[in-house]
Every structure is written in structure tokens, then in C-alpha cells.
């Protein structure tokens, strides 16, 4: 067995060294909140399938101050996910051509914001008054 102990540059806290890295870590961290919220919805579905009493327990659990605080942070995370997703999307998808002209990246980003706004309003309308 080798007794050699090569020097390995420590990488702890590397992402604190540049604002761009912090934003990157922030973006990746949104996945944790997205995952937890999806599990909360899944638990809700399990409760819903067990009957009305179980569903009402789930609704009551959502009123816990800790739960509300989590959802406020999760809302920020979901919105930040959306912002970063819209700005990356034109870079990973094939170029869009209209009248033999490539649609500029900024227009695709703006288009997604408009589409998201419409979908949010439609969803809210259907949930609140549907």
C-alpha cells in the first residue's frame, strides 16, 4: 500500500468565492424545494385517496406556521427556477426560425414570460372561480 499523501486542494466553500457561483448554487438548490413540495403534493394525494377525514387532516397540517414558512421560501425558489429556466431554455433548444430569420434569444425569453403570465392567470382563474 502506498503511504504517499498527495496534497489535494481543499474545495470547501468554493462557491462563495464568486457571485456567479452563488447564483449557480442558488439555482441548483431550488431543486430541493421543488422535490419537497412534490412530496407534499404526493402525500396530499395519498390523503385524498383515503377519504375526506384524511384530506382535512392534510389541509390542517398545511396551516402549521412552519409549513407556511416553508411554502413562502418554496414559492421564491419556484419563481427563481422559472426565471433561470426561461433564460437557459433558448440556449438548449434548437433555433426557432420565422420567415427565414432566426428568432432572437431575447424574444424567446420574453415570449416565455408572457406565456407564463397567461398560464398563471388561467390556472388561478380556474382554481378560484372555475
Amino acid at each position, binding site marked *: 500500500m502506498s503511504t504517499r499523501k498527495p496534497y489535494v486542494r481543499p474545495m470547501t466553500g468554493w462557491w462563495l468565492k464568486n457571485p456567479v457561483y452563488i447564483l449557480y448554487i442558488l439555482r441548483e438548490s431550488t*431543486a430541493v424545494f421543488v422535490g419537497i413540495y*412534490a*412530496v407534499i403534493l404526493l402525500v396530499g394525494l395519498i390523503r385524498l*385517496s383515503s*377519504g375526506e377525514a384524511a384530506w382535512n387532516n392534510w389541509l390542517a397540517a398545511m396551516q402549521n406556521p412552519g409549513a407556511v414558512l416553508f*411554502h413562502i421560501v*418554496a*414559492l421564491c425558489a419556484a419563481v427563481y*427556477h422559472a426565471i433561470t429556466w426561461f433564460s437557459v431554455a433558448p440556449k438548449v433548444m434548437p433555433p426557432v426560425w420565422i420567415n427565414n430569420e432566426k428568432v432572437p434569444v431575447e424574444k424567446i425569453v420574453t415570449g416565455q414570460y408572457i406565456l407564463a403570465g397567461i398560464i*398563471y392567470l388561467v390556472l388561478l382563474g380556474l382554481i378560484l372561480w372555475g
Partner: protein
Amino acid sequence: MSKRSNEPIVWSLFGAGGVVVAFSMPVFILITGIAVPLGIVSEDVISYERLAGFAGSWFGKLFLLVIISLPLWQSVHRIFLSLHDFGITGGEIFFRVVLYGAALWGTLLPLFLLVGM
């Protein structure tokens, strides 16, 4: 036959999940996690009767499956790719099984529940 990567499948689920999260999740978090619990919006909008009725329709089943399962795939894939950034460099197979296994469970369980509702 050469060994094929399962990356395209996982990436497609990640991509679809990212779209679902970006275009719908803020509204669901706002309603279920903030507006209803704080009493800003009546509890009736997500009452048992209304949601059980929704889950009883085929459109409702598909809708609920999509908003639960796809965000999970998006989440686990992103967490898996970020492990390295937090200094976790080993146990790739372990993390693949745990994370993608969780997303698969979070797809099959709602599917099973919804079909029976």
C-alpha cells in the same frame, strides 16, 4: 449490442419537469401552501369534494400525475448532478438508485392511486 446510456430518458423527464415547475408550480404553492392555510382564499377551492371529483375524471388524473411526478424527476436529476459541487464524489450508483428510485416511486404510486380513484 453496445451499452446504451439512459441519460436521454432521464434528461427528457428533467426537461419536462422543469417546464411544468416553471409554468405552474408557483400558482400551486401559492394556493395550497400560503393563500388557503392563511385564510386569504376559502378552503372550498381545494375541498375534498372538489378535488375528489377532479381526480375522478381522466383529465384530472393525468393533470395530477403530471404535476406530482415530473417535478420530482426534475428535482432528483438536478440534485444528482449537484452532488459533486458539494464534495460528494463517490457512491454514484447508490445515489442513482436512491434518487431516481424515489422519482420512479413518486410516479408509480400516484399512478396506482389515481387509477383507483
